[in-house]
């Protein structure tokens, strides 16, 4: 069965009485992908679940006014990204820790997390990634883990392709350094 197109979803959404049905289709198409994108930012399942729910409520409220200036996917991803980052900032405000400061407890928290199943190398990689400035972290995750093209990333993060490439290059260097440290 062919996947439903964004255009079909939006057309159905604007039809009277069909908005919820269309939204269900949108969830089926994008929920999992947005979840994993959020999860890699916030790291923990419970946090990712909260952010995901808030994200889709915002998407529901904003979909009526979606003008199609960007692709639907780009718009969704931008909301998800902003929600995840807002969550991290709120969390850091509560703990008094700057979100750019390295989280020295991350290793222990991930190891204790029932929903983290990585080996030592994957743990080291996650810690190295978490120590990047958050915009670099986003670029690295979207490029390396999600294999996203720079043009798409540029639309989501509202940053030039050149700047993203530079950011990714710096992120890779820092992660290499982090992985080869003892």
């Amino acid at each position, binding site marked *: 069965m062919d996947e439903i197109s964004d255009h079909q979803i939006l057309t159905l959404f604007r039809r009277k009485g069909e908005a919820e049905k269309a*939204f269900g289709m949108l969830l*089926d198409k994008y929920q*999992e992908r947005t*979840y994993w994108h959020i999860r890699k930012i916030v790291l923990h399942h419970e946090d990712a679940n909260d952010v*995901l729910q808030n994200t889709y409520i915002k998407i*529901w409220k904003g979909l009526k006014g979606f003008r199609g200036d960007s692709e639907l996917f780009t718009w969704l991803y931008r909301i998800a990204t902003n929600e995840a980052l807002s969550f991290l900032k709120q969390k850091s405000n509560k703990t008094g820790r700057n979100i750019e400061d390295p989280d020295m407890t991350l290793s222990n928290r991930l190891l204790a997390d029932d*929903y983290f199943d990585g080996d030592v190398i994957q743990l080291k990689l996650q810690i190295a990634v978490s120590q990047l*400035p958050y915009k670099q972290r986003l670029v690295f995750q979207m490029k390396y883990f999600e294999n996203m093209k720079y043009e798409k990333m540029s639309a989501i993060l509202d940053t030039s392709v050149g700047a993203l490439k530079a950011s990714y290059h710096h992120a*890779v260097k820092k992660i*290499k350094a982090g992985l080869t440290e003892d």
Partner: protein
Amino acid sequence: MIPENNDKIFFEGAKENPFLVPSGYFAESRAQIMEKIAKEVDAQPVKGYSLRPRLLWVSGIAASLLIGLLLFQNLIYKPYRDTKIAQELNWFINYAGSDLNEVTLASYFAEKGISLDDPLDETLDIERSSLLEMTDYDELFIIEEWINIEKQKK
């Protein structure tokens, strides 16, 4: 195991997803979200009236609201916003740390909706003394240079 060739950090296994979700999570999450959406729909007021008569009196008071808004924007909000931009910019300088460069600046400006047409030069002039107390001259110079370069490109 770290590969011997340090240029190749992307080895098999690192890209695999180490994160798990509870069994049945996505189906449950979908149901929860749709339930919340249904509540949102139920909470919306039912519109059973004609919009036209309301448009007439709404447009009548819109003009006075617009005047009030312009007055507020220029006399109260803009001075507050200019100071707020300076405060946020200062927060960002400390926040970005060693990553203060045109990449992070571009992202920050886009995120905050700050346009290069905003009177940032005036803002920086007004707040310069207080900004310089909290950061160093080099960082402020980077921002000003970047703004000048970007404006010349326009």
